[in-house]
């Protein structure tokens, strides 16, 4: 038996073992979660996950700080609100709903604020922005100078 055949048999055995383990691990995943029987909550949570995934992709793909903030602030606000709203609907008969709504309200207040703080300090410290397709500098037009732009780039 050559070495390639042995490796192929080893790989096939390992693959079979891994898939068997996965199937056995996925079997109790059909247990009841709090989400069963709430189709509105399921749709809201799926929408929130789609928005959070789009925010992560934008965080990786966008060219500079400000566009990444655009992705990571607006999409995260909407996606987190969708997931928290879905959880609030799914927990409705039990005692989880007021806490989830508290988290959602606090999150809806604080997520744009933290994005604003990051953008403000990034602009005032003079982080460079992407200028290939043109850009608008509203604060520069207002006469607000960015500090320390020379050594930060």
């Amino acid at each position, binding site marked *: 038996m050559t070495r390639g055949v042995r490796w192929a048999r080893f790989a096939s055995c390992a693959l079979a073992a891994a898939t068997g383990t996965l199937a056995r691990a996925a079997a109790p995943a059909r247990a009841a979660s709090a989400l069963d029987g709430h189709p509105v909550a399921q749709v809201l949570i799926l929408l929130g996950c789609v928005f959070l*995934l789009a925010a992560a992709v934008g*965080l990786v793909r966008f060219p500079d700080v400000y566009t*990444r903030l655009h992705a990571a602030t607006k999409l995260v606000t909407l996606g987190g609100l969708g997931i928290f709203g879905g959880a609030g609907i799914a927990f409705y008969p039990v005692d989880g709903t007021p806490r989830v709504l508290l988290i959602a309200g606090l999150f809806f207040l604080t997520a744009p604020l933290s994005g604003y703080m990051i953008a403000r300090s990034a602009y005032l410290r003079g982080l460079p922005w992407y200028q290939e397709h043109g850009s608008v500098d509203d604060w520069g037009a207002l006469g607000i100078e960015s500090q320390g732009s020379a050594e930060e780039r």
Partner: protein
Amino acid sequence: MVIDIAIVSLAISGVLATYRVLRGPTWGDRVTAFDYLTVNLAVMVVVAALRTGFTSLLDAALIISILGFMSTVALARYLLRGRVMR
């Protein structure tokens, strides 16, 4: 089924944001991705509470959300001024 899709997509987005934290060319990218990671962690804890039915985990999600916001604001203020408060 829905909860499994949610867990997998949240894990993928956490990995992508971790890439931006490690790679980010400037500190603004790192702080942005860190803010995203804290939000992602709070959402993951809420999804874990949905999955297992332990509503006590929602308190943990509340604390994680508040701590993420406060640490992001403190980091932004520190990187702007060199100090957090006067």
